[in-house]
């Protein structure tokens, strides 16, 4: 099995390096095909490993030492257990599809080869992240995906907005990474190791306050990667990257790393339910908060990004409440349909010459039938309509909240579900239904390459059927995660809840259709203060710019110009100048006049005599 593990892990790296060889040359098709093929190999290996671990076995290898000093010992260790196998499946499936899709999507881009190099590198980092058997290894992947995300968001580096977004993403993530790093330090100094098994085993002996601190710091790390409030702004801006990147990184895989971390560290979070509850609350808040911003946004990709954010919130609710497997399940299902949604959006963008405003589209269902169907499917799944994947995973989270007696959370999530349905279908309606408004803007849409659609189809399929694997999955994953089944025991309540939710969601969908089938600009609504707040993303980016970035820039300038130059350095120069200036001022004493020289000598004599007189008088007085 170790061989499969290594294949699964290093195939993406090989693909990346292969593509990197061509990175300076113009488009080479093979630079896209080889990484895709290698990813497929990686997928197959992951599948083998999945089958293997479903039998209850795990694979654990230690490749070599990374760092060892003092008591610290960090190996390159890899662990494939049920949790990581799930993640590996998600990562490899989505990434393989995105790769193949990208061959078409990036067809005309001059940096085609570079794109694949980075994309595969990302997959490699992600694999390290999920497969590592210790926190340090996780951190490697953690930073690695951050790097690739940076490079891919800023892929079109000539665009100011893209590079700005890339840097923003990187820096925001770094803020969170600091928390994670502190968490790791705490773990090391309290347990003496960073290996998952040893840490978790030792955790029960650690003071609970410290465990809480560890939990909080690790979660801060998770907040950055998973773009939780208040570090969420980068995700929407990250949509500056190519759409396949959004699909892979900013929907399916990297952003869920935070959830994965919490799930992975479940023995820690089990000890500290209060922190878990906080996570859940924050998750619920973010779910609703992000959904609300998606309601009014007029940027197709941003809407989907907010939706991702919102769904991440759901996952954190589940993870925070201890329903780790539920979180992971939603993570998986979400990966499929969200990636699908993004890829569909990519098709639309292609058709519309990278136009992102859905108000400029409409009626595309005629020209882009395949895309229309797949995006609708994905939206339905996202909205959580039976029997698609979203129903099984998302409703389960609602149930978890309900069963754990967190009714407020439940209500928030329920409302969010409605909002989700609304904005998803607002988007679908605006893009695919109604008048063909794009004609006014002179677009000539066309369907995407066929093989792109075919590449997307497995995702569509999974979006539809993933729910069916719920029990198999449950069986498998609970071998490492706490086995809690979440059932509403009262069947009446259960049915009322389920059907009620479904109805509520459908109502929202219908409302969205009614309102946006004919897309007319609602001036009155736009005047509304609530709308303005939502439109401006609660003014948070504004706030960050005004009260963090600008002061930072300003402070930096002050530090340099005013403090470093005018205080610190000037002090040094002043010390030197004091001597020099004293010299210049007093050199006049040596005026070349013999008389003053002689006087100076007498001055010296008299001064010494004066001292002598004082001293001898003092001595006489003391003696007398």
């Amino acid at each position, binding site marked *: 099995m170790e061989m499969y593990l290594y294949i699964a892990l290093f195939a993406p790296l090989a693909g990346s390096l292969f593509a990197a060889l061509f990175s300076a040359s113009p488009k080479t098709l093979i630079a896209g095909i080889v990484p895709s093929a290698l990813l497929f190999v990686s997928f197959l290996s992951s599948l083998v490993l999945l089958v293997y671990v479903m039998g209850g076995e795990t694979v654990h290898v230690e490749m070599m030492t990374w760092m060892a000093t003092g008591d610290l010992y960090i190996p390159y260790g890899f662990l494939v257990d049920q949790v990581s196998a799930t993640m590996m499946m998600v990562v490899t499936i989505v990434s393989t599809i995105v790769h193949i899709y990208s061959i078409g999507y990036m067809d005309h881009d001059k940096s085609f080869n570079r794109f694949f190099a980075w994309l595969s590198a990302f997959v490699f980092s992600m694999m390290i992240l999920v497969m590592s058997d210790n926190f340090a290894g996780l951190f490697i992947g953690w930073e690695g995906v951050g790097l690739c995300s940076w490079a891919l968001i800023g892929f079109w580096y000539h665009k100011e907005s893209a590079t700005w977004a890339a840097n923003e993403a990187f820096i925001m993530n770094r803020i969170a990474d600091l928390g994670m790093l502190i968490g790791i330090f705490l773990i090391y100094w309290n347990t003496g190791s960073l290996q998952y098994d040893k840490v978790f085993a030792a955790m029960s002996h650690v003071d609970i306050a410290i465990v809480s601190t560890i939990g909080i710091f690790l979660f801060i790390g998770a907040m950055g990667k998973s773009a939780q409030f208040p570090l969420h702004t980068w995700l929407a801006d990250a949509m500056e990257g190519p759409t396949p990147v959004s699909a892979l990184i900013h929907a399916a895989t990297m952003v869920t790393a935070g959830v994965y971390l919490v799930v992975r560290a479940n023995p820690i979070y089990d000890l500290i339910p209060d922190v878990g509850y906080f996570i859940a609350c924050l998750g619920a808040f973010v779910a609703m908060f992000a959904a609300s911003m998606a309601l009014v946004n007029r940027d197709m990709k941003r809407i989907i990004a907010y939706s991702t954010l919102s769904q991440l919130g759901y996952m954190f609710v589940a993870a925070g409440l201890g329903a780790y497997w539920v979180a992971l399940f939603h993570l998986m299902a979400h990966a499929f349909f969200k990636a699908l949604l993004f890829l569909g959006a990519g098709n639309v963008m292609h058709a519309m010459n990278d136009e992102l405003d859905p108000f400029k589209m409409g009626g595309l269902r005629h020209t882009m039938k395949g895309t229309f169907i797949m995006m609708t499917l994905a939206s339905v799944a996202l909205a959580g309509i039976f029997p698609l994947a979203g129903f099984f995973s998302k409703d389960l989270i609602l149930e978890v909240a309900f069963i754990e007696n967190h009714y407020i959370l439940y209500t928030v999530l329920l409302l969010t579900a409605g909002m989700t349905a609304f904005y998803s279908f607002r988007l679908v309606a605006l893009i695919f239904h109604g008048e063909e408004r794009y004609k006014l803007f002179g677009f000539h849409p066309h369907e995407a390459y066929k093989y792109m659609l075919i590449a997307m189809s497995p995702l569509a399929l999974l979006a539809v059927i993933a729910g069916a694997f719920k029990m198999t999955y449950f069986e498998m994953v609970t071998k490492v995660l706490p086995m809690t089944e979440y059932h509403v025991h009262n069947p009446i309540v259960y049915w009322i809840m389920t059907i009620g939710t479904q109805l509520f969601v459908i109502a929202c969908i219908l409302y969205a259709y009614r309102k946006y089938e004919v897309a007319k600009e609602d001036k009155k609504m736009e005047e509304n203060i609530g709308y303005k707040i939502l439109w401006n993303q609660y003014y948070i980016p504004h706030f960050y710019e005004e009260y963090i970035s600008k002061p930072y820039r300003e402070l930096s300038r002050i530090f340099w110009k005013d403090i470093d130059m005018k205080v610190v350095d000037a002090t040094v120069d002043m010390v030197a100048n004091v001597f020099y200036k004293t010299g210049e001022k007093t050199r006049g004493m040596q005026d070349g006049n013999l008389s003053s020289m002689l006087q100076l000598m*007498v001055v010296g004599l*008299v001064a010494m005599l004066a001292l*002598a*007189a004082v001293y*001898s008088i003092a001595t006489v007085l003391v003696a007398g």
Partner: protein
Amino acid sequence: MFEAIAFYLFAFLTIAMFYITVMSKHALYSMTALAAGMIFISAFFFILGADFLGAVQIIVYSGAVMALYAFGMMFFDSTRELKEKTTPSLLVFGLGGMAALMTVIIVAAPIVSDNIAAAYPIVEGVGNTQAVGMVLFTKYLIPFEVAAVMLLVAMISGIVLAGKKMDISLTLVEDDEIPQHDKEKEKAES
């Protein structure tokens, strides 16, 4: 009694003479006062029984030194009134006064010591000159010889500096011009 009168008299005279030397605007007055002061000083030597010293004082100072100065003065033509800019007089007098005052304060105290023993005691009944000669040519023979060398040096210096050798500076003349000067010099000498 006699000693006291003599002391105060000559003290007053020397102080006055030296004061004139220092303060006078006429170089000639200064010189005369200096010479007078030096002779008065020899009086102290005689009072104190240092006859030899007194004689030397008169011979060397009033005879040799003052003669030299007189010649110098004629050479420099400084017999006329001196135009000196003695501006910061307060400082000068202040410093001089302070130095005197403080030294006097300390020096006026009596010396308390039981350990003073004359290394070369003045023997009763022996003439001062003889005693001095005895010490000078035993104990102080070396300093005496060195002083002789010093006088030789002074003589050489005086001759070299004031003589013709300094007239043309080889330091300031480029090397290729020097032979000409040498020739000119030879001519002038012959």
